[in-house]
């Protein structure tokens, strides 16, 4: 076992722990914070199942964004769908035998990688050329896009420019899953790709990437429109009544 392998193995455990614990902390925190008033953006569904449908539209189709701005929707949607496909493609490194749907989606994952980088590049371009978006961009907004683009490019380069020993890479990650550490190939490009992914995992729960869990907790989108039928009293608001 090389020092690099040990370092990366430890780093992945650390990053996974930060990602999971960080997100769990956020989700529990969001769930525990009361929403004392009914504030769905209306027209809103009047039933629970209607809310599921509304949320489904938002999360799977980005429907509000579509109404808002077709360019942001196009690039943003392309990026997210491509990212999902790329993640599915990468499941082959974590499953043995590889699940059938994952196997079938392998070639699409590669195209998705290209789409992902292109869409990210367009999103980044907007931060420079649209004055309104340039105004609201902080350095971190640029850096997240840069990080994702570099992850995509280094990944594509591993496919098209400088192959690594993918069998060994898979053995490494399966080894992490089963606590049976295996060596990681030392190709610089692979190590770069993985380092960037580690940064993404660690930064996720401390950044605007929290929009992923956040959208599910948005009272404007997840509340049922029934305030006349039911009271919606938060515990701290109920205390006011008992004074």
């Amino acid at each position, binding site marked *: 076992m090389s020092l690099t392998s040990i370092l990366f193995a430890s780093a992945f455990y650390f990053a996974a722990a930060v990602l999971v614990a960080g997100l769990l902390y*956020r989700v529990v925190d969001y769930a525990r914070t*009361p929403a004392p008033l009914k504030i769905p953006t209306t027209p*809103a569904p009047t039933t629970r199942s209607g809310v599921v449908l509304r949320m489904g539209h938002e999360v799977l189709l980005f429907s*509000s964004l579509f109404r808002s701005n077709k360019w942001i929707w196009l690039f943003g949607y392309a990026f997210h769908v491509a990212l999902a496909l790329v993640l599915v493609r990468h499941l082959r490194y974590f499953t043995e035998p590889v699940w059938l749907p994952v196997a079938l989606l392998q070639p699409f994952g590669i195209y998705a990688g290209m789409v992902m980088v292109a869409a990210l590049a367009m999103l980044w371009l907007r931060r420079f050329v649209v*004055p309104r978006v340039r105004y609201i961009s902080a350095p971190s907004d640029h850096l997240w896009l840069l990080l994702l683009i570099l992850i995509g490019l280094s990944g594509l380069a591993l496919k098209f420019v400088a192959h690594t020993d993918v069998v060994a890479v898979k053995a490494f990650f399966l080894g992490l899953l089963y606590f049976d550490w295996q060596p990681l190939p030392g190709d610089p490009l692979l190590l770069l790709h993985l380092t960037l992914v580690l940064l993404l995992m660690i930064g996720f729960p*401390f950044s605007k990437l929290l929009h992923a869990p956040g959208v599910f907790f948005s009272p404007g989108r997840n509340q049922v429109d029934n305030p006349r039928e039911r009271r919606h009293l938060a515990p701290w608001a109920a205390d*006011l009544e008992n004074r």
Partner: protein
Amino acid sequence: MAKLDFDLPKLGPNLEIPVLQPDAMRGVGPYVAKPDHQAPLGFPGELVDDWHDVAIAKMGELLGKYRSFKVYLDSCVKCGACTDKCHYFLGTGDPKNMPVARQDLLRSVYRRHFTLAGKYFPKLVGARDLTKEVLDDWYNYFHQCSQCRRCSVFCPYGIDTAEISMAARDIMDAVGKGQKYCNEIIGKVHKIGNNLGLPEPALLDTLAGLEEDIEEETGVAVRLPVDVHGAEVMLVTPSADFFAEPHIDGLIGYAKVFHQAGISWTLSSYASEAANFGMFIGNYENMRKVSLRIRQAALDLGVKRIVFGECGHAWRVAYSFLNTLAGPFDFLDSRYPVPQHICEVTHDLIQRGALTLDPSVNDDKVVTFHDSCNVARASRMGNLPGGQFEIPRAVIRAAVNHFVDMADETIRDRTFCCGGGGGLLTDDLMELRAKGAMPRMQALQQVVEEHGVTHMAAICAICKSQFSKVLPMYGLPMHMIVSVHQLVGDAIQLGTKD
């Protein structure tokens, strides 16, 4: 009309996104509340010495109390979808009037004090300390948001700048920097019962005079009853309906509807105000206190139903919050929703054939309808989502023969605020109000030219006052703005059902 000391945006054939004009609306904001205005609401009289620590502590408190506040501060990805949606941005070009930039005034401080990234890498994530300059910027720009929720419709996460500006105002009140206009008014409601501070004798006098006017005009004795014990309906309406034009014609319309339908009703001198400015300042306790007056009045008068008059933000508080703040209303007639909107009542009566309307009375008018922001995006009427759009339109169509809608992207849930909502309907914000009205004026101008629209109906006291003021600035007649129930009142054939 007096000459304006600022330049109004031009109304073009299309709504253009303005070029960024940094600091175009920089300033000191509206008049700051005096100690006399602050005290009755439970706020410190003037900026406290340790305002920084108090503000941060208040922010922490709100983060623990409001999920919306926390989730919305965390979730924004700066995609830019909202940047061209705010009427104040469209009218002024000031980048801090872009919803995300307005939120960032507060989000930057949140990040500095409540997130790891902001604590250790403030520059990287745009975090900054709460300085006096930042506080002044808050005061100025959080009083350039009418809490109309248009941005939230277009946000992929439903982030609602109204929630952020309400929290910001609550924080500013907590450190003693309140807004005079809102806080003075809330104080009047706590003390007297309405925004105007109109005491009971004056109210009775005004209404008696109105009754005479109606009888003179129609020959029918239509009543405007106050504090009638045991009436079926208690009507809670914005106090502007008692004296302002065109509001008062709406009040006459409600009275005629109740009269013809044979519904016994009453106003309350104790709860003589529908509006609840407690929402504007984001303060739950004050909003609740104002709401409880309505509950108390309903109990005291022993009524069976509560109906709200035409008022936008009021209807939001009434529809969305009243049951929560001041319920349960199990002492009222359970066959009716609590509360009901006057448009729901009138619509039901029209459906049942209980009203005789002659729309040809209004044949001199081509009418369009302004969806008031908080009715459109923060409430409902009837049983179906979107009833808040259909029911007022159905009522108007029953009362007029010529109705035209404005452009699709400016109505229903994409409607533009009038420019005066959310506690901004004050003369010290006139430039903001005039410029913020531009998108609505543009859409109106278009239907005036294309369809010969002569009148715009609205169901909000603020909208009506605001439009009366800004229509002439844009070269449109002041009397274009009418109450929906003025149209109804004019079309009702009194005496046909008696």
